[in-house]
């Protein structure tokens, strides 16, 4: 079923390992950064909003 005869063949990518893995790794990296930024933004936002609400309830 699989095209490759071994795992090292797969990693070698017919001599194009640098190019193929270079594009896949950068893509994964960029997407992970996007998700991480969104999550940390969400956390920070919740924190600020909750403290804002507490502040207004005290006054």
């Amino acid at each position: 079923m699989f095209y490759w005869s071994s795992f090292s063949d797969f990693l070698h990518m017919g001599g194009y390992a640098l190019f193929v893995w270079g594009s896949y790794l950068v893509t994964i990296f960029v997407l992970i950064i996007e998700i991480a930024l969104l999550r940390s933004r969400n956390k920070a936002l919740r924190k600020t909003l909750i403290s804002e609400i507490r502040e207004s309830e005290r006054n």
Partner: protein
Amino acid sequence: MSSLNLNWFKYAAPQRFYGLAGSLIPWFVVSGVILTIIGLVIGLGIAPTDHQQGDSYRIIFIHVPAAWMSMLIYLVMAFWAAIGLIFNARLASMLALSLAPTGAIMTFIALWTGAVWGKPTWGTWWVWDARLTSELVLLFLYFGFLSLHASIEDVRKADRSAALLAIVGVINVPIIYFSVKWWNTLHQGASVSLTKAPTMATQMLTGMLIMVFAFWMYSIAVALYRCRNLILERERHADWVKEVL
């Protein structure tokens, strides 16, 4: 018909949309992960090598989906920006703003993987041909949209000004898409066409289309998540926000 219309407008309220998006995101995440696994197993594992380009062609499984998404997201973004502008709809403008960063990221991925694919195939990372140049213009349009929006303090004013820029920039999308037809470019022609039989092996095409759907799922999930952040930020003084926090 009227009940159908009612349902649509129901979700135009940020509060309703916040809940709807929150319950939809997990579905898009799960289907995105499943599609990515299947697509990569087919593309990187099962599909045969290309007799012209060797295994460097395997970049196609992210390059084409990212390039398609970069154009499609722009059109959707401009559509919602226009709706926001014409009907003064807050949620539509927020959707447009939520799509822009993801669109820029897709454009960057298309350019990056294109450069890395170009080096072994054409012998150069970059050429100023019509396809590559117009895709770079797309990246600057996203940057322009985002920085124009960020530079105006009043958010509704920012929404409107950025919407105008987005609408004018739509002209660039058909230029990117048809550039390989209209001009002599180093970039190869369309890999998939509705009118011609596919020129790719079935497994290559299957892997690529599955990855296209995976990128769809990813983009929808992150755009909805970002939109939820935006809604929280802009509706912070509404009573319902206190309840969901």
